[in-house]
């Protein structure tokens, strides 16, 4: 079993990516379980996924990297026991620190073959986020196995090059791919990286 954690700031496109990945796995006949977390008491992502035909375990009202850490581990154990999927995709809140979630997965006794963090950065608000919350953004990205610069269809080549240069400078060892969930640009490259 492989566990994927989609890390990235609020509104970076994690839920849409999650649906694309779940759809890709479903087409291959891979059994996928989805866990979505919302910081607020009121969740919307669970409803979005349900409306699109996906069943997801929703963990609202807190953050799975800190306040809901026990709830996450319990949920993972239940998923392993009841569903025993080939892949679990976890979408933490956009305010979570993915490396903390990875630690919790590792210590939850579900014994995944590998836990992989996909970092998602929103090119449209990249500069604003760096300007206002650079340290937090870096903490979100540093544990990622690879980083996607999302919404590439909405950015100029210069904007993409600048963001890629920043990420390459900060994370020289990480693979960085510009993608668009909307147009499907480079998603095939992401699918190739996904294990099952």
């Amino acid at each position, binding site marked *: 079993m492989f566990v994927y954690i989609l890390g990235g700031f*609020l*509104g970076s496109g994690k839920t849409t990516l999650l649906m694309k990945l779940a759809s890709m796995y479903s087409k291959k006949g891979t059994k996928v379980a989805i866990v979505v977390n919302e910081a607020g008491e009121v969740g*919307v992502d669970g409803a979005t996924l349900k*409306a699109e035909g996906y069943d997801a375990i929703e963990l609202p009202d807190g*953050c799975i990297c*800190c*306040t809901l850490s026990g709830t996450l581990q319990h949920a993972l154990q239940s998923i392993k026991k009841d569903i025993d999927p080939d892949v679990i995709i976890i979408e933490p809140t956009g305010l979570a620190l993915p490396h903390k979630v990875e630690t919790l997965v590792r210590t939850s006794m579900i014994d995944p073959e590998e836990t992989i963090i996909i970092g998602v950065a929103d090119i449209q608000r990249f500069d604003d986020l760096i300007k206002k919350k650079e340290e937090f953004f870096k903490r979100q990205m540093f544990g990622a196995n690879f980083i996607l610069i999302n919404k590439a269809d909405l950015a100029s080549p210069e904007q993409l090059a600048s963001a890629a240069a920043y990420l390459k400078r900060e994370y020289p060892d990480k693979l960085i791919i510009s993608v668009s969930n909307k147009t499907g640009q480079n998603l095939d490259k992401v699918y190739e990286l996904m294990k099952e």
Partner: protein
Amino acid sequence: MSEEHNHKHNEDCHCQECEDKRNGGEKTSMEEAGGVAVGFVGHFHGWNSDAEARLTNALIVTGKWVEKESGCLLGHIKCAVYHDDGSGITLNLTDLDNGVEHHGVIDPCEEINFNFMAAVLDVDPHELEHIMMHAIEDTGIDYQIKEGHHHHHHDDDDEHCCCGDSHEHHHHHDDDNDGEECHCKACEDRRKEEASKQTTEKKSIWDKIRRK
């Protein structure tokens, strides 16, 4: 624990001390980011495409307020409108220039559920919730907020809303009705004023005793 607290420090208490104790003194990731997440759930009555357009505007209004307050809209404002079987639509605002993204389709119906939430940075959560309430109210859609969710009423004649508008509010200062404590600025100010009055009165009593 501070002795100044009058409320019970039980599992439902969300004062800073209790939250810190729960998190072992560590900041949560949300606190680290300076993020807030608020929302409420309820029902719309008389749903159709016009209502969807009005609701879209509610998200825009909320987004503009966040942008004005914090300098830019970093985060998302979302609304799910759905039937009991889960089918429905979601509206998502992450960028004011792009507008609200719509996912899914629903036919007109008499009654439908909704979840309205915002997770953004650097704004006051109570004010944000307040603005969201206004935004829903101003759509003109017939709605009902599910019980248990915070809903203010500014029915007081002499009170003005923090949003600066002069329109009527439908928030309740519910302390007496359902045990829910309102934390809007007006209520917090009133509490402070009452606390300061009590301190003054106590001082005068002790003064009298001392004089005796």
